[in-house]
């Protein structure tokens, strides 16, 4: 990246502060009970659930360490969150240079195909077996 180190640190601090604030909101307020959490536009338009539907409730349950409930709200989110953190580590914290084989395994060709299959099959199955 072309950014200087000081800029990187300040941007990182701002983003992590924002994340902590959002985590506080999602910890103390259940998205199922409050109106100001945004609702999925795809569900509103088509009446079908998208693969991301229920992710806010799932994050709320995960922050309370209720993993089973999180799976019932959205089965993809509890799996995807560690995967996303791994991707952030590999991309932004020089993990790629340290563990190139890890990067190739989790973000290579087959990993991407598996991600697509999981998302699309979950999208179809959750609308069939409601």
């Amino acid at each position: 990246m072309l950014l200087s180190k000081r800029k990187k640190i300040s941007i990182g601090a701002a983003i992590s502060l924002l994340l902590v604030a959002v985590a506080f909101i999602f910890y103390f307020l259940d998205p199922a009970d409050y109106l100001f959490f945004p609702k999925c536009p795809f569900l509103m338009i088509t009446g079908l659930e998208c693969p991301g539907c229920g992710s806010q409730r799932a994050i709320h349950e995960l922050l309370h360490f209720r993993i089973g409930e999180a799976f019932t709200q959205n089965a993809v989110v509890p799996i995807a969150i560690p995967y996303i953190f791994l991707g952030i580590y590999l991309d932004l914290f020089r993990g790629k240079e340290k563990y190139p084989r890890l990067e190739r395994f989790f973000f290579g060709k087959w990993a991407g195909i598996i991600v697509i299959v999981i998302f699309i099959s979950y999208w179809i199955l959750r609308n069939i077996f409601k």
Partner: protein
Amino acid sequence: MNEYQNSENEEFNSQSEDEKVGMPPPVPENPYHNKDENQYDIPPMRPANWLWQSIVVTILCCSPLAIIGIIYATRVNSLYDSGQFDEAAKSAKTARLWTLIALLLGLIYIIYVTVKMMNGEVSTDMLPLDNGASIYNY
């Protein structure tokens, strides 16, 4: 030998001077890129494939668009591994484009909903159902 070399040098110099007068300076060729065979002598860097970014957007914003981003992101590494570096870079760019479009639309939607909430306008389809179950899905 000396005469021959001198004459050749003079010719070369005169030619290059003629070229300098009328022509624009020649564009330096990209040393990594062989134009004729469209192949690289030294393979370029593996492009960032935008996989985890598009997954984040799929889960948190409007998903159908970001899934296009995931599909293009998966093509990046397979194209790169098969030696199609130009196509891999193109695919990475497309993945970035769709991820950013989906992110932008999602952010606009979230801001729109927040502003609506602050004004106290709640549409009836956003109210909780009678049986206590929520239709909040996002």
